[in-house]
């Protein structure tokens, strides 16, 4: 148990992760289109407040404000040279908050996607992707992150590149993908596809799972898909608090704290051991989730109909799990 997350997991049945970063920073005045990571330097007090919001609401793990802190994403803001610095400071601020929490809290260094498509379909080479992820990883490591936390990934190639970079940095890690397209990732990967991918990595993550995506119902179905593979490692569920709506000029997610409490309990019953929220999840949601997880005894694995009845409908009829691997393809030259 060389790392803090494994140590904590060994003492607890479940852990609660944090909620949204973007949503909560908007509530603190971040403008749409600005890089949230700049606030690590320009508004450190607000970033500490973001982290504290999760910790005080009962999160055992929180993610650092470094989702877009890679050279490719920062290039938009003419700051591609600042990936290491902004990642490091994101983790340093996290360290401060975690070390004064009065209980064990894990600082998870968030690593988001590069935003580019990888070869052979797109322009980003494996080597360049590894290099960018490595830079971010070293920054988070230097800043004192306990683990690295890859999130919102769509492409298996990008997941593998990040894993390789984390091995170079010598850091334990967790990894989640976003299943937002008919129950699969944008690139077509199913939940069981990710479970297999994780098993095949030379340096597998401590835990794996799903984050973001469409709504809490879809995310629970994805967790059931992971659980059906009998995974060797803990499953992570970080779903959005409903779907986004515009209310009085601001984005508001329609998932109530009560709904997210139901979701948290169902996620645990579905097989997740690390449960949190994603977009739209505020400290208020986290508080009700924590309470529900503590007060509700574990139940049987929920059926799909039960998820629909309690959380709402799925965005698609099926999610591709348990079907033939890969999308159905016609074979070349079939008229031959």
């Amino acid at each position, binding site marked *: 148990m060389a790392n803090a997350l494994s140590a904590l997991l060994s003492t607890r049945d479940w852990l609660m992760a944090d909620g949204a970063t973007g949503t909560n*920073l908007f509530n603190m005045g971040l403008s*749409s*289109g600005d890089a949230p990571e700049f606030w690590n330097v320009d508004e450190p007090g607000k970033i500490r407040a973001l982290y504290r919001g999760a910790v005080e609401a009962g999160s055992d793990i929180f993610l650092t404000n470094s989702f877009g802190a890679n050279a490719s994403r920062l290039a938009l803001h003419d700051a591609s040279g600042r990936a290491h610095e902004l990642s490091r400071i994101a983790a340093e601020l996290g360290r401060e908050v975690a070390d004064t929490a009065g209980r064990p809290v894990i600082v998870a260094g968030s690593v988001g996607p590069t935003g580019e498509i990888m070869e052979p*379909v797109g322009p980003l080479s494996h080597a360049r992707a590894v290099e960018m992820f490595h830079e971010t990883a070293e920054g988070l490591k230097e800043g004192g992150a306990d683990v690295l936390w890859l999130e919102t990934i769509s492409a298996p190639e990008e997941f593998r590149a990040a894993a390789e970079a984390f091995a170079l940095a010598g850091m334990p890690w967790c990894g989640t993908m976003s299943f937002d397209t008919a129950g699969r990732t944008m690139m*077509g990967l199913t939940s069981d596809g990710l479970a297999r991918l994780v098993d095949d990595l030379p340096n597998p993550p401590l835990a794996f799972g799903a984050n973001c995506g469409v709504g809490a119902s879809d995310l629970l179905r994805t967790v059931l898909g992971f659980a059906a593979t009998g995974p060797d490692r803990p499953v992570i569920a970080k779903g959005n608090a409903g779907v986004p709506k515009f209310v009085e000029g*601001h984005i508001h997610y329609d998932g109530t704290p009560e709904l997210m409490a139901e979701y948290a309990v169902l996620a645990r019953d579905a097989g997740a051991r690390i449960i949190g929220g994603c977009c739209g999840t505020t400290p208020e949601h986290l508080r009700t989730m924590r309470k529900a997880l503590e007060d509700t005894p574990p139940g049987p694995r929920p059926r799909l109909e039960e998820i629909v009845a309690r959380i709402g409908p799925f965005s698609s009829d099926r999610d591709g799990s348990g079907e033939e691997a890969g999308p*159905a393809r016609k074979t070349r*030259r079939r*008229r*031959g």
Partner: protein
Amino acid sequence: MSDAEDDLILAELSDEELVPQMHDDLYDGLKEEIEEGVNLLLERGWQPYDILTEALVAGMTVVGRDFRDGILFVPEVLLAANAMKAGMAILKPLLAETGAPTVGRMVIGTVKGDIHDIGKNLVSMMMEGAGFEVIDIGINNPVEKYLEALETEKPDILGMSALLTTTMPYMKTVIDTMVQQGIRDDYIVLVGGAPLNEEFGQAIGADAYCRDAAVAVETAKTMMSRKHNSLVAG
């Protein structure tokens, strides 16, 4: 996959066989085969516009439908679109010479703060595949860039894309500015991106939210025909 592969020689196919074969090759993203097919049809005296609509656009319609239905995903669609583009590259100068009609013009770009251009590129390619003229202004566009493009390109449609919850509200900034300048109703505004939904599109004042590239094409076609009808009626 196995025995039948490569047994086929495109040049030996009749037109009736070649066109559906090209639909299959598009589906499979076979760029060189598409180029070969386009050249064969040209040699056989086909009009560039007929090749575009019957061989390429019709084939991409199948790809779009299977993408919409969750049978194909982004990597396959990108390969298909690349093959389509290769065919288009041959046809484009010929189409310009013959003065073939375009369905409409679209300016498209990802909003400020968003690097993601996967969805946007897919929409561009599928729109081009459907015969639209597309002016892609890239990623990370502030409102000024959109307005400038509307001014210079005079499109029928403005398309905006965002993949992040931190950037999607910026679409409203762009639309609000268009309203202020009194030019909102001069354009069809379509929005898309993973975190969006129909209600969001309505709330920010877009004409439509398009769930994916295939829906974007269908919506654009419907709205263009409505626009033409209202022009005729008006």
